[in-house]
């Protein structure tokens, strides 16, 4: 893996308030990174500094082997367009301004618009576009020049479920071709397409790593045992040396994830003739991890 972007000590201060506080991270080529955190955590400010729109108070953003501004595509949370241009005119303009040659720009713009599903609206004025169409147009202007790095601010938050599904699929299709960094506060979306997670809280990077790493760090391994009756479940809890919580026929058992503990659990299940229906390892959802990270801070 080769490093594409190196961010060191990135800080933004507005008057007294530190909105982004000395964050460091690295983006590898052809990976997707989710920047997650509650509203006001500094996600948009971080992205703005990466695009160059906002000058950092301290710290640096380095793109390996190239000028940053020439190699990014940016989709703001609420993209605004010149309403008197058509979709094709706007995308073509975006392409040319980002350095696509005049000859190829129109063709590329048309291809990109077809890719995002606006093939039938090439010549419609943007003034007549719906929210979903604007989001697609926003994506098309961000990718038309084939940037090395795609920065997306809450790309699906404002869309309805159908639109969200479609845009997520679009973005997944882009994963192979480019590096993506996107912010979101909707964790299901992050879970769906991410190689690296960056947790932002109050401007600080409080946790980072691959989804697996973060899971391992915060996962308290948990096995859920399903018994056939409530009495069995309660009896098991009374006998067990593990930390258990009962919920009807279900008992969730917190154990160390090592062989002796595992064996102990299985032995305790065979020590008495339970009618066990199911034993499953439970993985913490990103939501739960998120809550834990947020609580720890």
């Amino acid at each position, binding site marked *: 893996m080769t490093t594409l972007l190196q961010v060191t000590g990135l800080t933004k201060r507005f008057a007294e308030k530190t909105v982004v506080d000395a964050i460091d991270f690295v983006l590898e080529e052809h990976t997707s990174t989710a920047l997650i955190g509650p509203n006001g955590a500094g996600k948009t400010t971080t992205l703005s500094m990466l695009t160059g729109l906002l000058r950092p108070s301290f710290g640096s953003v380095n793109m390996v082997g190239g000028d940053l501004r020439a190699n990014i595509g940016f989709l703001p949370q609420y993209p605004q367009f010149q*309403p*008197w241009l058509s979709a094709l005119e706007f995308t073509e303009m975006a392409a040319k301004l980002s350095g696509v040659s005049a000859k190829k720009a129109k063709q590329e713009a048309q291809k990109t618009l077809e890719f995002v599903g606006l093939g039938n609206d090439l010549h419609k*004025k943007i*003034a*007549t576009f719906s929210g979903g169409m604007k989001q697609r147009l926003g994506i098309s202007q961000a990718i038309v020049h084939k940037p090395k790095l795609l920065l997306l601010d809450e790309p699906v938050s404002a869309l309805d479920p159908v639109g969200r599904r479609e845009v997520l699929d679009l973005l997944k299709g882009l994963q192979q071709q480019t590096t993506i960094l996107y912010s979101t506060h909707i964790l299901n979306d992050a879970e769906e397409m991410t190689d690296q997670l960056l947790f932002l809280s109050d401007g600080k990077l409080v946790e980072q790593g691959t989804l697996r790493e973060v899971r391992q760090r915060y996962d308290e391994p948990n096995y859920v045992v399903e018994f056939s009756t409530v009495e069995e479940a309660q009896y098991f809890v009374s006998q067990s040396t593990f930390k258990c919580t009962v919920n009807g026929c279900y008992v969730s058992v917190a154990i160390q994830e090592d062989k002796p503990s595992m064996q102990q659990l299985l032995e305790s299940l065979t020590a008495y003739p339970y009618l066990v229906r199911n034993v499953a390892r439970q993985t913490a959802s990103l939501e739960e991890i998120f809550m834990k990270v947020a609580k720890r801070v």
Partner: protein
Amino acid sequence: MMEELANIPWAIIAPLIGVQIILVIVALIDLSKIHATNGPKILWVLIILFINLLGPIAYFIVGRKQS
């Protein structure tokens, strides 16, 4: 009749009529294409047609709504 027509100082009137016609035509074409106006469209049609010179200009300044 012909004499009356000949008495009209065309050199003075014609440019004014020309400007008025251009303004009205362009304003009406623009109005027919535009997505939304400030205030009802039919009102602007009347203003453009019946207020000479200033009607179309008023439409361009305050009637057009972008975005």
